[in-house]
């Protein structure tokens, strides 16, 4: 045993555990955050399973034979099947919202004839692609499973699906929605990950930058200079945005290679032109997405600046800013897996209330041409940002920027001045 090790270790543990910033940041926050994340994952899987069970399929039956009736009955044994009397698939697409369905099966007039003759028959399978999350393809895959089961009962490969996607209400023939989902996985992951990295990096930079001024004792000098104090705030925010932006670009270049690994999920030789499918944001979409990201970033930085103003040194500032991370990580992870509209109302409200959810919501919305959602998000986050910016500017305009301190016992602000203030 090393001489003095036990005594020293005891001192270290006391010192570290009694530091409320470490205690909260390293122990309490993970104890809260990870169970919440676990609950999110569990909810995602559960809702995916439920959505599989609840899969509603509209059937357009052009065949009047017995086999098609059997096929429909087979599907109906596990899925919610509605046979609709329409002559074209386009008419059925219009009916999808009425039945809360996202899948259509079109049975050709030769179905029974071919099945009876033991010849393969193609059925049309149309699935709505909405780009809402990683579990989006569940409905499509569950139909696949039942068709395979039907084939096992009747004859191998007797029923063959000809898959098409319904994108923004239009039928795009020959596009497998599941493969499309796999291709779009990078977009589903990229935005939340980018947002998490960008916001957490830039918040750390902003917090460090403000705390450095305090730690290096340069803030007092700065505040007595003949300059607008709002300029100090804006300088801090802009500097952090620029550095974080550069960092995010570097990160995304590296991350892009990582995302390349997901291409293994796409069947070999499958290539879809996402631009021609309308699954790439338009110029307006990119603009809205940029604005959404910018206002969210600005509000995050302003919060970081405010919080770090209460810290006395860099380490404290970084710890304190860490408490904001669950507000960034949780909605990012939730929205990565789940369509926000499928969540219970209370959770939906919570997700919409967190400003950092909106760039992710906007990224999905603009791809699907839903600009209103993106605009409403921008308005909300801008209003939130204005309030936070106003609070930050007030803080910089007063002596609070120097005297404010965070009292961790009860997380209340202390007004007790330090010895140096009293000198």
């Amino acid at each position, binding site marked *: 045993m090393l001489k003095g090790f036990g005594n020293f270790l005891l001192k270290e543990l006391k010192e570290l555990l009694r530091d409320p910033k470490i205690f909260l940041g390293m122990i309490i926050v993970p104890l809260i955050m990870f169970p919440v994340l676990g609950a999110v994952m569990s909810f995602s899987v559960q809702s995916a399973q439920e959505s599989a069970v609840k899969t509603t399929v509209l059937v357009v039956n052009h065949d009047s034979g017995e086999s098609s009736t059997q096929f429909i009955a087979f599907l109906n044994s596990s899925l919610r099947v509605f046979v609709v009397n329409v002559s074209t698939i386009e008419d059925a697409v219009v009916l999808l919202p009425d039945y809360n369905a996202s899948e259509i099966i079109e049975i050709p007039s030769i179905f029974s004839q071919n099945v009876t003759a033991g010849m393969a028959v193609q059925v049309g399978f149309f699935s709505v692609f909405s780009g809402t999350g990683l579990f989006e393809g569940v409905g499509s895959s569950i139909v696949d499973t039942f068709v395979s089961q039907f084939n096992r009962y009747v004859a191998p490969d007797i029923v063959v699906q000809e898959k098409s996607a319904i994108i923004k209400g239009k039928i795009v023939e020959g596009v497998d929605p599941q493969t499309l989902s796999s291709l779009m996985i990078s977009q589903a992951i990229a935005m939340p990950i980018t947002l998490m990295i960008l916001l957490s990096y830039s918040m750390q930079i902003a917090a460090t930058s403000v705390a450095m001024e305090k730690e*290096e004792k340069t803030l*007092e*000098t700065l505040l007595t200079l*003949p300059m607008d104090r709002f300029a100090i705030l804006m300088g801090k925010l802009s500097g952090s945005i620029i550095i974080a932006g550069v960092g995010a670009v570097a990160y995304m270049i590296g991350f892009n290679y990582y995302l390349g690994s997901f291409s293994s999920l796409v069947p070999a030789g499958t290539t879809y032109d996402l631009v021609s499918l309308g699954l790439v944001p338009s110029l307006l979409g990119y603009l809205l997405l940029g604005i959404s990201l910018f206002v969210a970033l600005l509000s995050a930085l302003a919060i970081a600046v405010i919080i770090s103003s209460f810290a006395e040194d860099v380490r404290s500032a970084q710890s304190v800013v860490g408490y904001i991370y669950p507000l960034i990580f949780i909605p990012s992870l939730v929205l990565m897996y789940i369509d926000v509209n499928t969540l219970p109302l209370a959770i939906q409200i919570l997700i919409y209330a967190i400003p950092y959810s909106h760039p992710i919501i906007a990224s999905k919305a603009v791809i699907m041409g839903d600009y209103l959602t993106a605009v409403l998000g921008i308005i909300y986050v801008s209003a939130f940002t204005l309030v936070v910016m106003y609070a930050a500017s007030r803080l910089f305009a007063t002596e609070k920027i120097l005297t404010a301190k965070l009292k961790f016992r009860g997380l209340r602000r202390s007004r007790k*001045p330090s010895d*140096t*203030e009293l*000198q």
Partner: protein
Amino acid sequence: MWFNLEVAVEAVDLSKRFGAITALEHLDLNVEETEIFGLIGPNGAGKTTALRIVSTLLLPSSGYVKVFGMDVVREASEVRKILTYLPEEAGAYPNLSGWEYLEFMARFTSKSKEETQRIVKEAAEICGLGERLRSKAKTYSKGMKRRLLVARALMTKPKLAILDEPTSGLDVLHSYHVREIIKRYVKEHNVTVLLSSHNMLEVEHLCNRVALVNKGKIVAMGKPQELQEKFSSANLEEVFAKVVGFA
């Protein structure tokens, strides 16, 4: 010609409270133009609080302070144009060189690149750091950093330079150098200096007048020599001890 001089700093009935703690209590003070005025007292006496109020960093709880006739609360931005403040233990930006730091500071007052360069050269001369000004500030010793910061506070020839413990933590030689800088600069450029120190012997040699501060109150004020005579003391330390009833 002393009677033509303006009042550089006028503090009237100045109090400052932080919650339940009173840092300054009914402080009255007049600093005349071009004098070196020292606030002296022990740690926690309220010297820094007073300097921070004069330099527009803190708001008075009651009373007022005027700098060359301008109220430090209502006309704070105007006041900031004519003063510089050197906080105790102030630092420079560690990743900027001394030269870059001086340039950064000079740009707030200069109107052209040429003027910026002139100011920085002046500062370089004041601090005497020579080629070391090209090194990052994080490589400087405490003494070098302090000389850089004193030069920063004086280089723009402010009407009022507020120096909080200008020789704090410096060894004898560096302290001497900094004191000489202040003395010379005040003489050459008619700068008014309001400084604080808990080193009473140092202040004795540097200041024209001093105010002894204890527990937020001024307990004695005057020229060092006059105070020593008044309290029959050999130095200001003795004066202070007698005034606060320590001796």
